[in-house]
């Protein structure tokens, strides 16, 4: 057993930490977040230049073949800075789906551009009635003479507001609730029949809703064999969930550090409020939850790339449950221990709190994962 980073991983972390510190001050972030595209193209270009965007992409396509642990390193630092760039959705989830399902030609066409920062992807897996479960997808793609015709609605596509291509999950067979019959299509958001409505999210990054009305797609828009995307999607969502845990841990670390500093400096009743035992114990509870969440995030990173198995599913679900419960707990406690100041827009803690609570709304909150784990219980 060895839970330390390799020298390369340590260098990646140091480099990113410095970059985030220098370029992601509170003011800059606030400005960026206020208007479309909702992230910093300058910062995104720096991530490309330093090779960070290439980390999760396969070496054969201009990437660095980073593992779940490299994703952990990157996402933790982006989480500390509350960075708004669509790294998880585009590089990890989007890139992972292309790698897993794409033909050689599709990989060649997309992955090198993704690694270089010339292409941004987004993944449209949610709909008005899916509630975190892709098997309830209703959007349909019909076979037509020389391709597919796509119709339906896609909800809260994170990063979709500025994606060059959106990976749209659609049903080519079967009924909502079935895992079979799902397919992934590469859709150009500028194509005819696509309406895109962009907006900021409460979590921080921007997103969009998509209305698809008879969108005509060529044959090569389909990733993988028709009707059989579910397995690969489920596996890639597992990788994304592991990465999201790391993002949350970075943000939780920051929220805990800010709160601890505040307890040591804020004076009331003639002494720092951190001298009061009731607040000390609450701070200890926060760091305890962070400790457990960190442990589960490491576990998730280490199993993220493993082949699908019941054990991997249980570990990833448990990681999501523990991390998301911790995230909301830490967000609420951090605000409470700060008092009124914790509720102000102009203090970064408030934005960590928003992010920590709202990240439960991507890939499912702690209750959703509790239910999922309970369903798998008998097997254990």
């Amino acid at each position, binding site marked *: 057993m060895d839970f330390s980073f390799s020298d390369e991983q340590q260098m990646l972390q140091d480099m990113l930490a410095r970059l985030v510190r220098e370029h992601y001050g509170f003011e800059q972030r606030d400005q960026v977040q206020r208007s479309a595209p909702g992230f910093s193209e300058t910062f995104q270009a720096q991530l490309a230049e330093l090779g960070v965007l290439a980390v999760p992409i396969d070496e054969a396509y201009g990437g660095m073949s980073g593992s779940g642990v490299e994703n952990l390193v990157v996402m933790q630092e982006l989480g500390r800075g509350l960075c708004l760039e669509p790294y998880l959705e585009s590089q990890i989830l989007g890139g992972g789906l292309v790698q897993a399902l794409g033909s050689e030609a599709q990989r060649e066409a997309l992955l090198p551009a993704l690694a270089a920062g010339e292409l941004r992807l987004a993944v449209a897996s949610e709909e008005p009635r899916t509630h975190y479960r892709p098997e309830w997808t209703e959007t349909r793609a019909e076979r037509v003479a020389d391709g597919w015709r796509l119709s339906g609605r896609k909800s809260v596509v994170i990063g979709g507001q500025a994606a060059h291509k959106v990976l749209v999950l659609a049903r080519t067979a079967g009924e909502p609730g079935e895992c079979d019959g799902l397919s992934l299509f590469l859709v150009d958001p500028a194509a005819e029949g696509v309406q895109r409505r962009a907006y900021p999210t409460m979590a921080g990054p921007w997103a969009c809703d998509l209305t698809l009305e008879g969108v005509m797609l060529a044959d090569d828009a389909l990733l993988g064999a028709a009707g059989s995307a579910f397995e690969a999607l489920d596996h890639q969502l597992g990788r994304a969930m592991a990465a999201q845990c790391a993002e949350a841990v970075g943000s939780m670390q920051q929220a805990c550090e800010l709160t601890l500093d505040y307890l040591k400096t804020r004076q009331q009743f003639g002494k720092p409020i951190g*001298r009061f035992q009731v607040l*000390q114990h609450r701070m200890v509870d926060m760091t305890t939850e962070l400790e457990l969440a960190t442990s589960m995030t490491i576990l998730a990173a280490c199993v993220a790339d493993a082949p699908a198995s019941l054990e991997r599913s249980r*570990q990833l679900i448990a990681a999501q449950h523990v991390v998301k419960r911790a995230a909301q707990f830490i967000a609420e406690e951090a605000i409470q221990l700060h008092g009124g100041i914790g509720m102000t827009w102009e203090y970064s803690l408030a934005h960590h709190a928003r992010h920590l609570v709202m990240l439960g709304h991507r890939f499912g909150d702690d209750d959703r994962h509790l239910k999922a784990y309970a369903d798998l219980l008998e097997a254990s």
Partner: protein
Amino acid sequence: MNIHFSEQELAFRDEVRAFLAAELPADIAAKVRLGKKLTKQDHQRWQAILHRRGWYAANWPVEHGGTGWSVVEKHLFEEECAAAGAPRLISFGVNMVAPVIIKFGTPEQKAHYLPRILDGSDWWCQGYSEPGAGSDLAAVKTRAVREGDHYIVNGQKTWTTLGQHANWIFCLVRTDPEAKPQAGISFLLIDMESPGISVRPIITLDGAHEVNEVFFDNVRVPVANLVGEENDGWTCAKYLLTHERTGQAGIGISKAALAHLKEVARQEVIDGRPALEDPLLRQRIAEVEMRLMAVEMSTLRILARAQAGGVPGAESSILKITGSEIRQAISDLARRVLGPHALPFLAEEMQLEHDSEPLHADYSVAPAAQYLNLRKLSIYGGSNEIQKNILAKAQLGL
């Protein structure tokens, strides 16, 4: 980053497994699994088996008869023992007073006491808490006054676990009442057969006789029984407490308890179906299982750090808090899953290997008592609130 045990460690685990399969008496394992009370003889039988294999004193250095195991090997050993249903070792001798004697004792003390612990000649109990000194341990008042070659000891100890079985007690006694609380304490080894000692049972809320009061009335203790310097007993006390805290997460015990809970939940019936299919119970089991997974991963991280030469610090307090909460949560579910069958209170059945005539099932006898008994987990060994004080100070600098 590598979350797996090494080949060598896995081979060690297999060796432990094979030993347990061959040597652990089935009647003892059954009692442990069902949460029944073990007798003194049960404990002694298991200790003797471990001693024969050279595995009783896992934490001692090799030169004194220990195993020389790494922290990971110790963890694997404990986990396998728990999974097999081996009794948890009574730690007062082998894992509490022995490390203090090894660290602070004279050559004569080591030569005399350590072999007697190993071969089971002595059963030790702990004389720390007093009616006026619980979490505030430095407030101990039991007085030891030097008179020639002896100390004359007067006072009272309490919560003395299994003191009724013990022939020796290690005590914190006050030798200098004028000094600051921590400065006037000494660490004294006392023969329980000395004139002037009396032991009175305390029956706890589960109806069990596990703890005792021990009274000292002009008890004469040879000065040779002092460990470390006079008035420097607090150093021994602190050293011992750090030993007491490690391993308190009880990961292996919780895993075994959870497996047993699921087994019972397959047999119990709720709404005409196996209880394990009840959605709410499943979720509650799922919740505790996921948290246990997180505490296990945290334990492994701390072990890996210790293996690499780091000194375990305040983070072991996190394991104590979360590990005890999980064990209590499992014991809560183990009681609930029985429904009305948790109600019968059959004190005598709890001692038996097999029920004479089970009312409901063999597994339904102990869980309510065990739930009540395990309230102790968050109180002893430094209450969970004391652990939080330690973390606030040592880890957070508050």
